[in-house]
């Protein structure tokens, strides 16, 4: 098994301040925040830093 670095722990969601629990995540993995359904890329592991992916804003027609 290649030894890709993973990490576990919690981090505060950059958007909604919810405490997000991460289990064995790798760098650049996409994770989802339970509080606001936002999707984030894990930029660094120790400490965790998350970067928000583009929100697919709903098409309101008009």
């Amino acid at each position, binding site marked *: 098994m290649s030894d890709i670095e993973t990490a576990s722990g919690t981090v505060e969601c950059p*958007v909604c*301040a*919810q405490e997000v629990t991460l289990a064995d995540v790798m760098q650049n993995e996409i994770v989802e925040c339970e*509080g*606001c*359904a*936002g*999707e984030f890329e894990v930029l660094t592991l120790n400490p965790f830093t998350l970067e928000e992916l583009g929100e*697919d804003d709903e098409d309101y027609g008009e």
Partner: protein
Amino acid sequence: SNRITVAIAGGSGYVGGELLRLLLDHPTFTVTQITSERHKGSFVHFTHPNLRQRTRLKFTGLDELEPVQLLFLCLPHGQAMQQIERFTGLAERIVDCSADFRLDDPDLYAEWYGKPHAAPQWLGRFVYGLPELNRDRIRGAQYVSGVGCNATAINLAILPVVQSGLMVADTDLICEVKVGSSEAGNKASDSSHHPVRSGAMRSFAPVGHRHTAEVLQLLAVNRTRARVHMSGTAIDNVRAALATVHLFVPPGTRERGIWKAFRTTWKSEPFVRVVKEAKGNYRYPEPKILAGSNWADVGFALDNSSQRLVCICAIDNLMKGAAGTAVQSANLMFGLDETTGLTFPGLHPI
């Protein structure tokens, strides 16, 4: 046995019917009597068809009411306060779902209901029955009021902002409520005639809505001064209330700060969920998926360019806006788990 005897006075209306539906599956409360002057002597399920084969109770007259441990009053506004001495003589504990004992200030009552209160001495003995606001005072209380559905949707929408101090004094709260038809009760009228009511977007009480009083009361309890401006639009749904409250927050207020205020207020509440999601079909609170459930979903949106904050709350007007909250309070009054009999999650799709 540890059963608690319950009576429902005024049980032929929608709120009375919802109470009976909930209590039939309640492990501790047992409904022994349910009154209706119009349907005296008739089986209850002929009025509440969803309860066929679930109960063989018949409606009795209000005058045949016997002593019980818990009495729910669902009488037309004005009747509870006329007969409160008699009711408190019959029941150890009372939840009054009408507007008679919601306000603790007789002047506020007279101002908004246009007539003096018939039993002002009793007002102070009732606790306003919104557990999210008054849980400690409701716990073990003898007399508790119900809540107004529109006021509850607004109160739950704004409570985080009120409690977090994000709101400067004398802020104007523009409160728009979109509501379903069951709010007006089960008495037919010209304007509830289906061809007229179907597909409606009917502006009602664009100004001077009575439920304003209960919002003012919540603000007073939180020692917050704000001006409440309500408008209503009746929509084609049957069960639904959606409050959209607009206010301006101080410069520098950021979305994270509002998220934290919402989390702080709601994190341990069993029946309030913060709904503001970046994807999916239900990104903001939506009443229809709450039909029949006791949940209130709350959310917000902040316009950073103008510092306008929009606070949103969706409920089922018959449940979190009336019967569900009444049972939630009753659970607290008898020291039971607050969620007992109230965990139905609503239907999806619906």
